């Protein structure tokens, strides 16, 4: 039995070129804490302030989404959560999917699902009509009276 061949020391080539996995790791660390702040704020504002859990109805949500601050807040939360979840699931697929075929299939299903949710979510956030014509005024946010 011969001793296994050790690798020749390579000539220094400077820094790594392919940093994709590194940036994926950094993204998880950065987006995680931001998500923590966004999600806790989201839950606190919806469930703890005002009338708490019983305040949530169409009017409440419509009121929030009529405000650019909440539109952009929710947009950030949507995109970050989806990209963070996408990247996390990508890692899990890399771990568990053995065959290149199933890996590819799962990755494309994941990518499609992520894209669909981000696009639909963004569409709702920015095109939402808080005062749909002909709706029962009791169910609408108070500012709809001024609009009408």
């Amino acid at each position, binding site marked *: 039995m011969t001793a*296994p061949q*050790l*690798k020749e*020391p*390579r000539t*220094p*080539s*400077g*820094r*790594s070129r*392919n*940093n*994709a*996995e*590194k940036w*994926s*790791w*950094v993204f998880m660390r950065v987006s995680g804490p931001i998500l923590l702040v966004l999600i806790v704020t989201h839950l606190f504002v919806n469930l703890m302030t005002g009338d708490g859990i019983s305040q949530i109805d169409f009017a409440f949500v419509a009121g929030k989404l009529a405000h650019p601050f909440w539109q952009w807040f929710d947009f950030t939360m949507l995109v970050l959560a989806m990209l963070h979840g996408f990247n996390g699931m990508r890692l899990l697929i*890399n*771990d*568990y999917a053995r065959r290149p075929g199933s890996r590819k299939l799962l990755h494309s299903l994941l990518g499609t699902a992520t894209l669909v949710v981000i696009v639909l979510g963004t569409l709702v956030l920015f095109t939402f009509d808080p005062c749909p014509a002909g709706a029962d005024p009791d169910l609408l946010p108070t500012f709809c009276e001024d609009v009408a």
Partner: protein
Amino acid sequence: MTATAESSAPAGEIPAITVTLRILRTIPEGTEEHGPGESYWQEFTIEAHATDRVLDALHKIKWEQDGSLAFRRSCAHGVCGSDAMRINARNRLACKTLLKDLNPAKPIIVEPLKGLPVEKDLIVDMEPFFASYREIMPFLMPTGAVPERERLQSPADRQKFDDTTKCILCAACTTSCPVFWTDGQYFGPQAIVGAHRFIFDSRDEGQWERLEVLNDKAGVWKCRTAFNCTEACPRGIEVTKAISEVKKALTTGEF
């Protein structure tokens, strides 16, 4: 204090106990009851002392009951790293694990290391493990002329990688890692420990070659900070910390 032959206090006799070992066996050529390569549990009951080690118990089984039981060991004193195995669901060295620390009232479960192919009984094929170690180039890579005398280093510089010099390549860490279990492509904690030992050595100049290898898809970014490796290491190396220091070196360029 001097030891004297006539010091009279009788050494407290250690009571003998009966212990059962449940061993996961695999015989490549098969037995009368089991097909070739089939894994099955077999129980052995032996008389032992509470202060005996699992390795002593395995010896007793092999020497007195069943000579076909296969396991590796060499130094029997926690130095060579031959006898890492899964004992009561944790990776440990059989020669450093006392029976009394395992609750000998219940059967002690002994399995081969997980994630490496079993060759026979408790012997696994270590080649994939050593292949990862070779990948990170575990040798000093200096530049410049060969010095006349040894390469000096300050105690503070030495301290940076002191912990990772203690590795005995037993594979307890790598085979305790859930990422390694599911993806054998992953270099595993030990290769990163081995790389850390050189990356943080002020005398070595191959840092970026090694960091480049570990920046790979199957490299250090596969680590999910599960801490299984740190818990498993029989040398008490802070494996997860070493891995994090390598990640930090890659993200900040500091080492």
